[in-house]
């Protein structure tokens, strides 16, 4: 029996489902998995690098910027022979080092008690919402970093937009969970947040609404990659292939995420895949500018 070690930032239940489904498809492979936030998983992995003995074969984390960084350090190994035809080339690395598995978009959430219902990113900078907007900090959340990069790469928004938000008394609220809680709890009326939280919780009765703003959304794509130090590259490849297969993509949809595969139906509560407009995003550029953008962010929001 082979053992495959997976480090993932998927929520627990999702990770368990994914692993169970994979093991059902490959009964000869036993999967050991570790789940934690992307930051912690990366800290753990970094420590393992430093100690010279990284454990995982496969990495399944939130964003491609991190993957890009690892790729440049030579920590990843390309996986060949996958069926990638259906996928948007923007969703995987040209050298086949990492592959997006789903789309977790960052849009706008608002409390149903709110007087105004924002439909555009710019609405968050309106005076009616002064002091009432929450957003995750890129210093805490990987998704928020991508979001910042996407918005600042966008000509229509750019840093001016962040300046306007800062002027509107927006204070970055930790991670997505914190932002969502602030809005759902009524402390804030609106905020930028990843899609699945409000969509799921709304279904259970939480007083929130999620909108895909007209400028488009940023997305983290939960890329999967095999490490160059993988002990079990064969199984790793099978795992990657499984996630990108239709079966794997259906699983993501069942879990309540937008699948990366355009041919797989979006889960309930999401608009159809075609109606979701993604903002353009360049991971390589993001990797280069991320550090200094964070500094800029700090300057603007005065941490």
């Amino acid at each position, binding site marked *: 029996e082979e053992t495959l070690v997976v480090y993932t930032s998927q929520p*627990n239940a999702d990770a368990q489902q994914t692993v169970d489904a994979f093991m059902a498809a490959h009964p000869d492979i036993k999967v*050991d998995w570790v789940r934690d936030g992307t930051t912690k998983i990366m800290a*753990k992995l970094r*420590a393992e690098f430093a*100690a010279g003995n990284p454990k995982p074969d496969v990495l399944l984390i939130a964003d491609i910027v991190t993957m890009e960084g690892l790729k440049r350090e030579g920590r990843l190994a390309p996986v060949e022979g996958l069926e990638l035809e259906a996928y948007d080339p923007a969703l995987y690395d040209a050298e086949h080092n990492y592959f997006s598995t789903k789309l977790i978009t960052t849009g706008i959430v608002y409390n149903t008690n709110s007087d105004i219902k924002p439909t555009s990113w710019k609405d968050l900078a309106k005076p009616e919402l002064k002091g009432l907007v929450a957003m995750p900090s890129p210093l805490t959340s990987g998704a928020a970093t991508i979001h910042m990069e996407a918005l600042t790469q966008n000509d229509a928004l750019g840093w001016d937009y962040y300046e306007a938000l800062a002027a509107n008394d927006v204070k970055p609220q930790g991670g997505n969970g914190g932002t969502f809680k602030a809005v*759902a*709890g*009524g402390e804030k*009326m609106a905020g930028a947040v990843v899609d699945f939280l409000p969509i799921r919780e709304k279904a259970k009765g939480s007083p929130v609404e999620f909108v895909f703003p007209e400028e488009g959304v940023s997305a983290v794509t939960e890329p999967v990659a095999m490490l160059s130090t993988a002990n079990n590259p064969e199984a790793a490849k099978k795992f990657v292939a499984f996630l990108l297969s239709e079966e794997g993509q259906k699983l993501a949809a069942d879990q309540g995420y937008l699948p990366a595969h355009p041919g797989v139906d979006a889960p309930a509560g999401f608009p159809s895949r075609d109606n979701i407009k993604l903002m353009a995003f360049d991971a390589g550029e993001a990797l280069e500018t991320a550090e200094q953008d964070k500094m800029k962010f700090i300057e603007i929001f005065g941490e």
Partner: protein
Amino acid sequence: MPFGTSAVWRKAPEALTLWVIVLAVALVAGWPLLRLASEAVFTDGAFDISPVQRALESRSTWRATVHSLETSFFGMVFAVLLGGLFAFLVALTDVRLKLPLVFCFMLPMMIPPQVTALSWIQVFGPSSALLNTLGIAPPPGSTNPVYSVQGIILLLGIQHAPLAFLLLRAAFRQIPRELIEAARMAGAGAGRIAAQIIVPLLTPSLVAAAGLTFVSALGNFGIPAMLGIPESYYVLPTLIYRRLTSFGPSIISDVAILAILVGVIGLAAVLLQNYIKSRIESRLMSKPGAPLFIPLKGLRPIVEAALWLIIVMILVLPLSALVATALVPAYGVGLTSTTASLENFQEVLFRQSATLRAFMNSGGLALVSAVALGLIAIPLGFFMVWQKNRIARIAAHLSEMPYALPGVVLSIAMILVFLQPLPVLGISLYGTMGIILVAYLARFLALAIKPVIAGYEQLDPKLDEAARIVGASFFDRLFRIAAPLLGPVAAAGGILVFMTALNELTVSALLWSAGNETLGVLVFNLDDGGYTVLSSALAVITVLVIFAIMLGAQALNGILPRGVLPWTDDQPTPHGR
């Protein structure tokens, strides 16, 4: 008389014990920290001071340092005041219902800090079920008042007050009443007695309590993360966390540098403690005396009411908020008779197999850590205080560092050291429960030995001398004099370790692996994944389990030695009546 020949053999057990303990401490606490520190100054094997310079030049580093100092300091002051007040009333006066009172007072410490923070947020936010029912909820959109420096200080204080309480209660009990009576006879009023007699007499324990609560607050992540980050108020642990999010290859060295900064602050605190202790002689002289006892008379109902009000504030309110959240189907839904259900409990208890496993794992880890550390504390204190052994002293000081560091940092240090198979033994702890255990041993060492050392410091060393005179060997003195005298304190420390380890999150977060998940990790992961209601349900279950354990231990009280259970009431009897 055959002195000379046997001397070496007679001393062997003593020397052996000392070295075993010192080496154990060095292995679990010293080595990882050293390894971590080396990461700060070595980049790819080459000595490189530039990351240190960068970190020290960064303004955010200094701002976070100042924030850390202020929250830890005031958190400590608050914890010592609150814990000291309870300790005084419970140890020396005739307030009734001491058992439930202490029980309830200890509970906040058993609740993971992030859960505490969460529940306080829920209590005071605009959507607070409680405040809404009372009609005094702040309007939607107003900032939650607990998101503030004061909020952080308040919660750090409440979270750690039980630590101060336990240390000080034992100390209050040891004050011979005649020292207080002498002051009363001189006409001194209560205030003066408190300030000029009791406080100095309590010095070792007060300093230990202050040190422990300060270091706890310094290393606390959950509270400043939940309450500070939304307000962009960073302390060192949260700054470290933020650095972790930079993902780049420099994380480890950045983190190591900040960790060293925390370590330096912790060390400064230790040195300051030593300085204060050396200035104030508070060793009681050994003529035994009956303990002090203060009847409250007419004040008793008022005092009792005030105590219970505090309990309501620090325990019932946040806990009920937590329960309320656990009962609703989704976060933000109001708790009404129609929305309330036990669905979340069923989900975590019966549908998620990890829950049961996590309880077993955490329980086992906590138990082993508590017992092991309780056992180490007694000889370590013996060597350090009664034998005035320098090496033991260094080991004891070293043991405080891992407690001051943020858990993430400690676990990184653990990975750095224990990833590779152990030399000689050839087994690898990484990816097993073993590494979590080692990390727990390192982390909670301070919690276990501080109370014991403070206990030793209040006792007259003549008690040991008298035993040496009658020819008692090292083990005789350790087991028959030191252990019974310090046993209750050590056990109390061990129970603290157990309770804290059961809920521990930040250390195990990086160290767990599939099948080895701990309770704290489970609670955090649920919350982090957006399942706040499930995580609340699990937190409620955890509190209930702890409650049950405490009750179970209470049932065994009859067969346990006196004073072992920290919450039990061994009320001093008024003598001569």
